């Protein structure tokens, strides 16, 4: 099972980015919420890995 990792980068302008890797399901949103605190969300994007997992799930559902 892939390790769940969080990488947070904070710049000198007061901006912060969170890179969440290896998550499945709701866990990802919960971890993001923990570190987000009351900060303003400027942008959120699902990573390629997310779409690969989605495709795999759909394929399983279509199996006869």
């Amino acid at each position, binding site marked *: 099972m892939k390790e769940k*990792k*969080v990488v947070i980068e904070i*710049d*000198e302008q*007061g901006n912060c980015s969170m890179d*969440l890797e290896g998550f499945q399901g709701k866990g990802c949103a919960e971890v993001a919420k923990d570190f*987000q605190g009351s900060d303003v969300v400027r*942008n*959120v994007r699902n990573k390629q890995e997310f779409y690969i997992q989605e495709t795999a799930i759909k394929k399983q559902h279509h199996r006869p």
Partner: protein
Amino acid sequence: MSKYVELRTSLTDQRYLVEALQELGYEPEVCPEGRALVGYGGDQRAEQAHVIIPRGQLDSASNEIGFVRDSGGVYQAIVSEYDRGIGFDDAWLGRLAQVYKERQTMAVAKAKGYIFKGREVIHTPQGKKIQLRFAVR
């Protein structure tokens, strides 16, 4: 489900604000009820603040620098034109937010049981970035 999230730091927690100011070399005064800031001539100014850097810790011609908690719970900086001109500008406030966010992140990680994997300072053309890495149990 892997995500990439971009945030703008809001100064909402007095504890981390005070710690961040201390890390930048100041000993701020905390006034839960708020008090008027003192100007460079010793005069009381109209602006009130809850976290204050006294004049003695600033330039001899400085006004006090304050942080007032607004109705949304966010600390807003009150910095005079003079003090902005001598370096207490947006860049200084950005560095303050950087230290604040690092303190807050480390405290959240500890409280929620994340496993700290390392800290790195990355030099970029826009300045130093602090990278914090965690693993999830």
